[in-house]
Each structure stands twice: as C-alpha cells, then as structure tokens.
C-alpha cells in the first residue's frame, strides 16, 4: 500500500509517515493529522459545492425576488418610466378583475378533471397490465410514449385531430352515428378538448408509478385474502387500493401542480378561446404580460400562482414524509 508517485499527496498524508496505517486503523494513530485531513476534505467538498449553489441562486432566487418586486410596479412595456415601485395596486386590481376570476374557475375545472381522469385511467391500466404474462411486459414500455413526447407535439397532434377540416376523429364519430363537432371553437367543448389532450399525455405518469408500486407490493396480504376466498375485485378494493393510497396521493399532487402550468396545449389548440373559455390562470398571466404589455400586472398574477404552487409543494413534502414514516 504505497502511494504511487504520480498521485499528489495531500500535505497531511505527507506529514504523517503512517498515512496508510492511519486511514486503515483510524482510532489507533494520532488524532491531529486526521482532523487536519478531514478539514481539507471538507474545504475541497465545499469548493465543489459553491459554484453550483452560486449559479442556482443567480438563476432561481434572484429572478424570483425580481418577480415579486415587479409585481409591485405598474410596469407597462409601452410606457417608459413605468418601472417604479408603487405598492399593491396590481393585487387590488386583480381581486376586482372578472377575467382573473374566470381564469381561476377555468384552471380549477381543468385541474380537477385532468387529475381525476389521469388517476382513474392510470390506475386501471396499471392493474390491467400488472401480470407476468410474456408479451405484455414488452408492450408496457409503449404505453409511456405520450408522456415523453414534447408538449408542443402533443398539442399539435390533438389540434389536428380536433380541427374539423382534417379531423379523422369527427369522421369516426360520423361513422359511429354520433354528432360531429367543431371542438375547439365551441365554448363548452374547447376546455374538454384540452382536458382530453392533457389526460392522454399524462395518464402514463400515474400508470408507471402505480405499476412500480404494484410490483413492489408484498405477496402475503394478497395471498391471505385469496385463501380467505376474496374475489379479485375484493382483493383489489380492500387490499391493493389501500396499499396504493400513498402513491396515488403523491402522483396526484404532482399532476395537480403540473396542471397549473398548462401552456402549450392552450396556446396551440385554442389560444385561450373561444372568448375566455379556456383561459387558465397561467395563460392569462402570459397574455397580460406578453400579448399585451402589462408586465407588472402579469407579475402579480404569477406571484399568486407561485404562492399556490409553493403551498402545494409543501403539502407534497409533508405527505411524502408521512408515507415514509408509515413504512
């Protein structure tokens, strides 16, 4: 165990003739060089950490602070000199703005239905495909394709399916004797079109997580239930489902938070319309800041959105903590 000459020796090791022995049997040898070595190691590790933390601070914390500051200004890109702190005017305006409350209501419906349907479909499909039959294992991977597609591709795919001129979907509905619709320009159907696209994109996320949980599930309770003569449905309802609850909660919350970021679908499929029928809060903030020029107002909407996301994230941390405590 001699050090090869091409490797740099740390001063601490060089100073101690029994470096090898020391590291091998730490308690036996002098404590002072060892402490020095630990201090050096700590300094090096800190040096490895600092650049990333500095960068992370610069690209996340600073912009967030800047955003909060902007939300207290009446900044309008077309008005020079409007970038000055002026109190909570934007927030007061926000509370009075019908269009904002409309966006909250659109967001609520969008989030509720997408999360609910994703959980149901993902759970059902995972249960269906949780089997050791050969062939099924091979096709499982194909089910995750929707969620790995670039969001813009998902949006364009569904835009093409929902646009009457070229809609194979409408044609299929016609064949089945059902009414053909102008999905994206109908004020009640447009939101549903977006919900469909989002559910399609993200049910595989629930599917993957539930499938993993099913595969790690202990056999004993399932076998015990089977011996007791429980039917398949009873086993699912009373044994598997309770065991899956923590997973469903966590993926559900993740989907809930992500649903508040819905953007490409709305931008490409409906542009928030018809009227304001699909104008979710995130999209409303985008319109105010970048379609119009009211960046100050837009920042205030975003701060509200950010606060909601942050509260939900804390919720996730609590739940995850509790789920692991139970284990």
């Amino acid at each position, binding site marked *: 165990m001699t050090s090869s000459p091409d490797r740099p020796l740390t001063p601490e090791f060089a100073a101690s003739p029994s470096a090898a022995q020391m590291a091998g049997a730490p308690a036996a040898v002098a404590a002072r060089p060892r402490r020095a070595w630990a201090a050096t190691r700590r300094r090096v590790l800190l040096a490895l950490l600092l650049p990333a933390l500095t960068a992370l601070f610069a690209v996340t914390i600073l912009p967030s602070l800047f955003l909060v500051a902007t939300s207290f200004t009446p900044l309008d890109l077309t008005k020079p000199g409007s970038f000055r702190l002026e109190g909570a005017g934007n927030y007061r305006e926000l509370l009075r703005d019908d269009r904002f409350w409309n966006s909250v209501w659109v967001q609520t419906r969008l989030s509720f239905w997408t999360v609910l349907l994703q959980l149901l479909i993902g759970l059902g499909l995972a249960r269906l495909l949780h089997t050791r039959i050969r062939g099924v294992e091979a096709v499982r991977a194909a*089910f995750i394709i929707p969620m790995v597609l670039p969001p*813009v591709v998902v949006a364009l795919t569904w835009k093409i399916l929902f646009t009457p001129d070229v809609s194979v979907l409408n044609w299929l509905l016609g064949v089945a004797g059902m009414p053909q619709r102008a999905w994206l320009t109908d004020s009640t159907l447009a939101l549903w079109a977006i919900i469909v696209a989002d559910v*399609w994109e993200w049910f595989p996320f629930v599917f993957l997580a539930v499938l993993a949980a099913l595969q790690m599930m202990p056999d004993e309770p399932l076998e015990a239930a089977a011996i007791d003569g429980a039917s398949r449905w009873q086993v699912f309802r009373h044994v598997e489902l309770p065991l899956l609850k923590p997973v469903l909660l966590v993926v559900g919350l993740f989907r809930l938070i992500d649903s508040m970021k819905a953007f490409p679908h709305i931008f490409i499929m409906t542009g928030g319309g018809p009227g304001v029928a699909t104008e979710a809060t995130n999209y409303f903030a985008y319109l105010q800041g970048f379609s119009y020029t009211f960046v100050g107002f837009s920042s205030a909407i975003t701060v509200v959105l950010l606060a909601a996301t942050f509260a939900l994230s804390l919720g996730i941390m609590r739940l995850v903590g509790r789920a692991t405590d139970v284990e």
Partner: protein
Amino acid sequence: MSSKRRRALARGLYLVAVGAVLLVVLFPVLWLVLFSLRTEVESFRMPPRLFVVPTLQNYVDLWQSKFLRAFENSAVTASATTVLSLLLGVPAAYALSRAGFRSERLLSLWVLATRMAPPIAFGIPFFLIYKEIELIDTRLGLVVIYLSFNLSLVIWMMRAFFDGLPRSLEEAAYIDGAGVLGAFVRVTLPLCAPGLATTAIFCFLLSWNDFFYSLILTRSDALTAPVAIVNFMNYESWEYGKISAGATLIMLPVVAFSLGVRRYLIRGLTAGAVKG
C-alpha cells in the same frame, strides 16, 4: 374444453384486449406520423384513407425552409445546457452526498420549488433582464435560463446515484495517496457512468422540449424547433404537412432516448419529493 385450453384462450383474449388498448392509446401519434407522409390533397380527403402512397415532400419542403436552422438551435442549446449543468451540478451533488452538510430538507424543498414553479415565474424577470443586457434572441440566453430547471435536477439525481455508491472505494484511493479531487474524478465518477448518462439525457430532453422560454425569449436567430413549427400556423391557413413533418422530427430523438431511460422516468419527474 379442458381447463388448460380455457386458460390459453383467456390469455389470448387478454392479449388481444391489451393490443386494442395500446392501439387506441397510440393512435393519435401514429396518425400524426401518417399525416406527415401524405400530400395536402390526401390530408383533406374525407373519408380519410388509411393507406396512401407515402410522400416525403413535406420533409423536403421543411429542409428547404428556415426550420433547419431552428432544429440546429434546439440541438445546440440543449447540448450546451446539458454540459454546463453537469459541470456545475455533478461536483455539487458529490459534495452534498459526502460531506453531510445537513442540508437535506432545504435542498429538497429548493429542488421541488424550482421544478414546480410555472415557467412564467422565471420568464418575466429573465425577459426584463435580457432586454437590458441584450440577450434576447440569443442561444446563450436560452442556455442560461435552462439552468434554472436543469441544475437542481442534476444535483438531485446525481446525489442519489452517489449515495448508492460505497465509500470504501474512495477511502481505498485516499490510502493509495489520491487527494479528494483525485478520488472523485478517477474512482467515483467512472463508477457513476450510467447515472451520468441518465441525468444527461434528462437534461437534454427537458431543454429540447421547452416551448415557453423559447417563445418569449427568442425572435428569429435563436428560435428553437418547437416554436418554429408554430410559425407554420398562419391565420389564413395551416400548413398541416410541414407542421406534422416538423412535429415528427422533433419527437423522434425524444422517444428513442426516453425509452432508454424509462426506469428512471419517475425518479426524474418527481425530483425533490421521492428519494432515488
């Protein structure tokens, strides 16, 4: 019918059912690809024909448009931000894994918050700052803002990989006279190659898929492919052929890569909340 044959039949029916569900699920994206291979006339034909003589005309048109430049922008910015995030993030992840700074909760909250924040939260301040320092419509500008989601992801994922490696190997390297850095670079990193590859793919995909930042921070020179396609949506007409061809090109590398890392998909997507 013997019970053996009945079971075989049940299995056959089950497989058919699974196949049918798969077909329904994948139909939209298959249709997009088929759509990109037909002429304008065919795409408007009702009832649509399932099989038509495929044409690559849409791809040829795309090749001759500005789309190629946008594709290049996407590839360059995604690669550059991946390299930068790894260079900064991997050493940091190692330090967090080995030093025991007792930062666990704070770090996971930070990672989770940056992953959860709607892009517009960073979009507005970056837009205002970039306007001042003239980084609007530059690749550099995109690379920097992509760090906001990539860096924390790298730290989170790589720390899980480092935590999974036994420390005894590094300690053996110390005994052989390697310094802290030497042990990290020559011993630990090579062992983490699969983790590094997975993390790199994640960073690349997240940047490649970005739509929002490119939409607000670029105009023409640094335009990336997802936003460039949208420019084929005009008020008068949609160039469906080019749109579907462009969308197909954007998704191909993504699908290939992600099926490769599917084991880690959940870990990557729930970074901050679920331990590796």
